[in-house]
């Protein structure tokens, strides 16, 4: 092996985490939207927390291969936690409340991860679905605390850092949500490019072999599930804080199902899929549901069926150049081509 080849190898090894111009562009565009699109901050806020929520699903589905039908459980818990903390003035600083909501969801994620460890896809589907429905039922039956079917009313969110009030146009809310999403994205990106993240990808491909290499598969799964739950909880808390309201449908099955669609639109397993999917999904929803709001689920269904029949890979093929900036697919294809 020539010194040149060795240098190449070292560079390839270390280069997985390098930033690609596409990524910089993506986030610059997001930052610019705070100034350039002031009239759309309300829907942009929804896009931002949905993106974070989808990112959290990507951590477990795209990186660890766990199919979940109940990711809304963590989202909902975070939403109610933030709402209750604000309503009863337990924690007035939104950022701190956000953190606590995330921790609460992470704790639930940790506890339920032991259920998810067991069994194959089908069992996981049902356990995740069951947990979400269970929480919804709990919230429904404890109306004295949660407001039951009427939702949690009377939430007032104090100004951010004691200075920035949440205004009715959603300016503060959007900058806040976007900033939180960006920071958490950076953290997720760092984690998924680490040795830990690489080991998750190996486990997703072949858990038995990963274990034979010495990886404690179950414990890594618990760790990433807990992390993802925390992220989802924070996304839910952002929803409550920016709308000063939350209701039972944060736990709904439809929310978990929509989330799968969001991630699938953008493609799983390279962190940007959820973000791109959130943008596309919300824009679609905005345009289609203005025509016929009650028939919106029909279009979601049609989209899901079409995506599966056409093939997810083909649908997300347009993201290939974007995926490449995770430093991967295209170079691999190149290497394969030279070999052939």
């Amino acid at each position, binding site marked *: 092996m020539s010194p040149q080849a060795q240098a190449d190898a070292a560079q390839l090894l270390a280069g997985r985490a390098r930033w690609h111009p596409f990524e910089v562009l993506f986030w610059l565009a997001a930052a610019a939207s705070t100034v350039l699109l002031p009239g759309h901050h309300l829907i942009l806020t929804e896009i931002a927390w949905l993106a974070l929520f989808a990112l959290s699903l990507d951590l477990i*589905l795209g990186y660890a291969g766990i*199919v979940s*039908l109940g990711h809304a459980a963590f989202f909902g818990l975070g939403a109610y936690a933030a709402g209750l903390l604000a309503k009863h003035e337990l924690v007035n600083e939104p950022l701190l409340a956000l953190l606590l909501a995330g921790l609460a969801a992470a704790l639930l994620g940790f506890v339920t991860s032991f*259920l998810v460890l*067991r*069994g194959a*896809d*089908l*069992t996981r*589907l*049902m*356990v995740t*679905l*069951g*947990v979400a*429905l*269970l929480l919804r*039922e*709990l919230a*429904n*039956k404890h109306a004295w605390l949660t407001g039951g079917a009427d939702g949690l009313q009377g939430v007032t969110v104090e100004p951010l850092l004691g200075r920035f009030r949440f205004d009715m146009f959603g300016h503060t809310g959007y900058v806040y949500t976007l900033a939180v999403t960006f920071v958490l994205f950076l953290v997720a990106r760092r984690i998924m490019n680490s040795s830990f993240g690489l080991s998750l990808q190996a486990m997703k491909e072949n858990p038995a072999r990963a274990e034979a290499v010495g990886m404690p598969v179950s414990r890594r799964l618990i760790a990433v599930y807990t992390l993802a739950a925390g992220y989802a909880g924070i996304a839910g808390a952002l929803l409550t804080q920016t709308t000063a309201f939350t209701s039972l449908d944060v736990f709904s*099955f*439809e929310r978990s*199902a929509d989330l*799968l*669609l969001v991630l*699938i639109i953008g493609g799983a397993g390279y962190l940007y899929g959820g973000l791109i999917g959130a943008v596309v999904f919300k824009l679609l929803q905005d345009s289609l549901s203005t025509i016929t709001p*009650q*028939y919106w*689920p*029909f279009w*979601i*269904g*049609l*989209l*899901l*069926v*079409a*995506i*599966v*029949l056409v093939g*997810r890979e083909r649908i997300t093929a347009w993201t290939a150049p974007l995926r490449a900036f995770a430093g991967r697919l295209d170079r691999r294809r190149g290497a394969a081509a030279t070999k052939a």
Partner: protein
Amino acid sequence: MLTILFDGIAYGMVLFMLACGLSVTLGLMNLVNLAHGAFAMAGGYCAVVLVNRLGVPFLAALPLAFLASALIGLAFERTLYRHVHRKSHLDQVLFTIGLVFMAVVAVDYVAGSSQVFVQLPDYLQGRFTLLGVGIGRYRLLIIVLCGVIAVALQLVLMRSRFGSRLRAAVDDARVAQGLGINVGGLFAATFAVGSGLAGLGGALGAEILGLDPSFPLKYMVYFLVVVTVGGTSSITGPFLASLILGISDVAGKYYLPDLGAFVIYTIMIAVLIWRPQGLFARAAAR
């Protein structure tokens, strides 16, 4: 007390009708079909239209509901489902959720979102008392009818040539294929019959479960519980699971109304932790 037990059994029988097709198709093709409830809903609405609008006698409408759902099931299997047999579970989940959403909206669009009922003939209404137990005539019909069908299913599975092929295919589809069994055709037939039974369940259960466009979503968990708890390797597993689920749900709602559906979800999760292969499944051969 015994009346609750009786109602619970009737409820469980309906659940069995609804879910048994799902458990067989899952065992046979490892196909996760979350849209199973949509076929049940089709049967239910079919019965509503036949009885309420066209004046078809109730008992004649039942087999027609079965046929309608079976045909719809067959059509979907041959045109759409067969494309997802070999796809990942994630794809199957996405695909069938998509079908559910579309079915829900489509029915809402055609029939409206309010709950509908099948008009029962007079002789099936009311209840009588036997040995101190209040027995609803309609529920008695359900129990007898579903009981007969369950026994028939069991006989077909255990005694007939079709049944033995089916069991072989459920055990190991690849080996069965190698033995010259047409697994694809077998699956389509099973899917159709399963959908038909679900349709029959939907028609019979409209009275007990309530029928509106959100039916497939509302009862999806129930089907999944039956399949999970009962396992996919026999008919008796889902049958017992349905009875347990029906009785505990009725009793739970009666004695512990505050807990609501909590009871069922807890049971399901507990069983999944305790016996991930199902309560009545044979020890998993690995």
